[in-house]
């Protein structure tokens, strides 16, 4: 009971902290005029734009890895830090990051005195926020699930410090990190295109890249160019999948603790990399690098021996500073939220529940549509090894194509012709969230033990009875995990999907995403921004806590094979 209260308190603190940061960021106004760079839309510029987009993605990904390992290590190695750090991560994961984008742009542009670097930083920061959290969670889980015996063996061999980090922590995390990196890149592409496409309110600033190229090509009615842009994007994504992710996934299997001999055949690209690494020049280069690194790994970082009074003094002051920052952040949030509530036009306030309901309705429709096609597809693909080998790479590659790249097309051909924003909104939400469901469901179907499949065959359990008694309960945990991620992605997509400007004309669907955009771009109403953002985040957090969490517990308790 006391533990529960403590957990709720840390969650509330974490929520308020994030809101404090939002307030702090949104308070900023642009102090510098941005000169939009000239972005010519021509075929020959396409490679350069693709490179720019890739550069942003890689910078954000490296940032995510550094952040994730540091944060997860700190959280997993001290029970004192664990509670609050996990609570903050959980909130960060549920907050619709796209809502912070304009604020982040203001902040970074001011920081870099109006140069393009500021906008680049904001874009990288946005992509980072879409990539980092799940990687962090996966590393944290990996550290926590290292078998106790292996930890003891490492400690008995007197391995510690950096060496322990690279010999135990990093390898243990590799299978999950590779898998989650793939997911993160898929999400990252979505946000990359989004932040290149979205005009930040009155600024209308475009970063040179694939997203802006697409947007402008459609704006100019050059469908050929837009198709070429999508072609370039698909090409890059497929190249990355077949030359990086597929061989990496195969390699990552070696780091699992389960001693199951894998019968999967190595992909051709994996064999190619092995050949390349064995070329004399490259292999000597690799061993040279290894020799350079190893003394660093073997370095015994002796903790600096401070007099115990001084070290406890230092620790105390550090704790005080952190506590002060937390207190400052939360009180800032409380003050700003209450003052916003007082200032805000009451008409807006009453609109918020209706807006949340309207948005949730759109998400529900998209979710049901997604479920209707992903469940049978997952069963079809996962119940046969050969089918799985054929379809999985294709699906993974397709899932990485950000739906938002088709956004300009959807606007031009659906919204501007039918005048109905709802179809486009639901389509955007659907394309942004269906893959999470499909992947998790395929995993769920695959996780049905061979014994149980054979049993069903022997007992003659088929058709409807098989679905009801075996299949649906068996995939239930995966369905819940997939649904949580899918709904998370959907809330985020609302911010792009409910407020669409095309050729200077505004199309909107009333909802919480619309309110947030309206407050940001049209009204410049800080109180409304903050209240919309807070109520949206709060809805997500409460839905997670009181619905998805309960479902998840049910899945763990009842529909779990490890009994």
């Amino acid at each position, binding site marked *: 009971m006391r533990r529960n209260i403590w957990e709720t308190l840390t969650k509330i603190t974490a929520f308020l902290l994030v809101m404090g940061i939002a307030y702090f960021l949104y308070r900023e106004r642009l102090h510098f005029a941005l000169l939009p760079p000239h972005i010519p839309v021509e075929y020959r510029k396409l490679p350069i734009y693709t490179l720019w987009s890739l550069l942003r993605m890689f910078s954000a990904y490296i940032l995510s890895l550094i952040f994730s390992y540091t944060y997860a290590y700190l959280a997993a190695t001290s029970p004192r830090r664990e509670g609050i750090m996990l609570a903050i991560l959980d909130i960060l994961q549920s907050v619709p990051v796209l809502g912070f984008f304009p604020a982040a742009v203001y902040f970074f542009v001011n920081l870099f005195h109006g140069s393009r670097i500021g906008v680049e930083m904001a874009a990288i920061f946005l992509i980072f926020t879409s990539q980092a959290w799940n990687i962090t969670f996966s590393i944290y889980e990996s550290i926590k699930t290292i078998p106790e015996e292996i930890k003891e063996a490492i400690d008995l061999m007197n391995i510690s410090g950096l060496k322990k980090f690279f010999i135990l922590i990093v390898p243990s995390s590799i299978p999950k990190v590779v898998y989650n990196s793939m997911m993160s890149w898929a999400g990252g592409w979505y946000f990359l295109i989004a932040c290149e496409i979205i005009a930040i309110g009155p600024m209308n600033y475009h970063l040179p890249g694939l997203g802006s190229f697409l947007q402008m090509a459609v704006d100019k009615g050059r469908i050929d160019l837009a198709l070429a842009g999508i072609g370039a994007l698909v090409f890059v994504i497929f190249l990355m999948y077949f030359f990086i992710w597929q061989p990496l996934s195969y390699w990552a299997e070696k780091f699992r603790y389960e001693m199951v001999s894998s019968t999967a055949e190595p992909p051709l690209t994996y064999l190619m990399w092995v050949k390349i690494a064995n070329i004399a020049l490259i292999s000597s280069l690799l061993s040279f690098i290894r020799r350079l690194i190893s003394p660093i790994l073997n370095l015994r970082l002796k903790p600096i021996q401070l007099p115990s009074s001084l070290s406890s003094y230092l620790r105390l002051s550090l704790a005080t500073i952190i506590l002060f920052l937390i207190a400052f952040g939360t009180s800032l949030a409380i003050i700003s939220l209450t003052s916003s509530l007082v200032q805000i036009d009451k008409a807006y306030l009453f609109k918020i529940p209706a807006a949340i309901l309207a948005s949730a309705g759109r998400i529900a429709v998209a979710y049901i549509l997604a479920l209707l096609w992903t469940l049978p597809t997952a069963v079809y693909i996962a119940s046969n090894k050969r089918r799985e080998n054929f379809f999985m790479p294709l699906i993974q590659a397709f899932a990485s194509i950000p739906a938002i790249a088709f956004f300009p097309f959807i606007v031009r051909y659906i919204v501007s012709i039918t005048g109905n924003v709802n179809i486009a909104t639901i389509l955007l939400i659907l394309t942004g969230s269906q893959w999470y469901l499909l992947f998790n469901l395929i995993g769920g179907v695959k996780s049905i033990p061979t014994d149980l499949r*054979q*049993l069903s065959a*022997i007992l003659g*359990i088929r058709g409807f009875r098989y679905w009801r*008694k075996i299949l649906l309960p068996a995939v239930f945990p995966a369905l819940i995990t997939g649904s949580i991620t899918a709904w998370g992605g959907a809330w985020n997509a609302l911010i792009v999907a409910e407020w669409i400007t095309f050729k200077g004309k505004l199309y909107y669907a009333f909802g919480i995403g619309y309110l947030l955009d309206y407050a940001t771009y049209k009204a410049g109403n800080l109180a409304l921004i903050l209240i919309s953002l807070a109520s949206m985040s709060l809805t997500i957090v409460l839905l997670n806590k009181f619905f998805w969490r309960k479902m998840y517990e049910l899945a763990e308790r009842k529909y779990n094979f490890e009994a």
Partner: protein
Amino acid sequence: MSLPNGNTTLKPKLLEVRNVYRTYHHEDTNIVVLEDVSFDVFENEFVCLVGPSGCGKSTLLRMIVGLDRPTKGQILYRGQPVEGVNAKTALVFQNFALVPWLTVWQNVELGLEARGIDKKERERRVKYWLEKVGLDGHENAYPRELSGGMKQRVGFARALALEPELLCMDEPFSSLDPLTSQNLREELLRLWGNKELPILAILMVTHSIEEAVFMSDRIVAMSTHPGKIIGEIDVTLPRPRNQRDEEFQKIVDKVYAIIV
């Protein structure tokens, strides 16, 4: 029905495995799991397939119940080739294969439902077999609430409730602790010996030679890489058998000599 020569002591043949091969394809090479395997199971027989792990005995068992097909050769049941799952057989799994979200009762009932057996008869059979394996009172428990021994009792009840002719068991005692497994072995033998089981024959796969000598009437010994039959030993010791008997040890040594 008249038999040739009027030989009525000849036991009817239930299962006939005839020159069975099984190969798998992996990374451009063919791995031969089973090579030219032949043996028979007659009515009223308890047969054990014994061999080191990896000799393909579980694969063989799965082909006999109809989950898998031989690459070459034939498996005949009462003279008819086995096509698809053989409803006259039932399988007891090494790791129980219980459905975690169904209760003990529902787990046993599952297969009867699928065979379209009416509710009254289902209830009778489930009740009867749960009592026989000593699980009365645990009908509403979930598998996770049971000990390993009790889980396997559910496994037995589920297989027996189908009232098969040939009961197949894939190392049914190897994931239980020694005391529990010995208990279960003796109980199964008691039911089998008292003719309380509806089954006509038992075919059990095991890697424990002592277990095979303790339980079976005949041992079919297999070698590994590829799986081949290297000998058949009749066990004619009277039951109940005692592992410490000199005769018992002699047979164990004989099987060891063949396999190792």
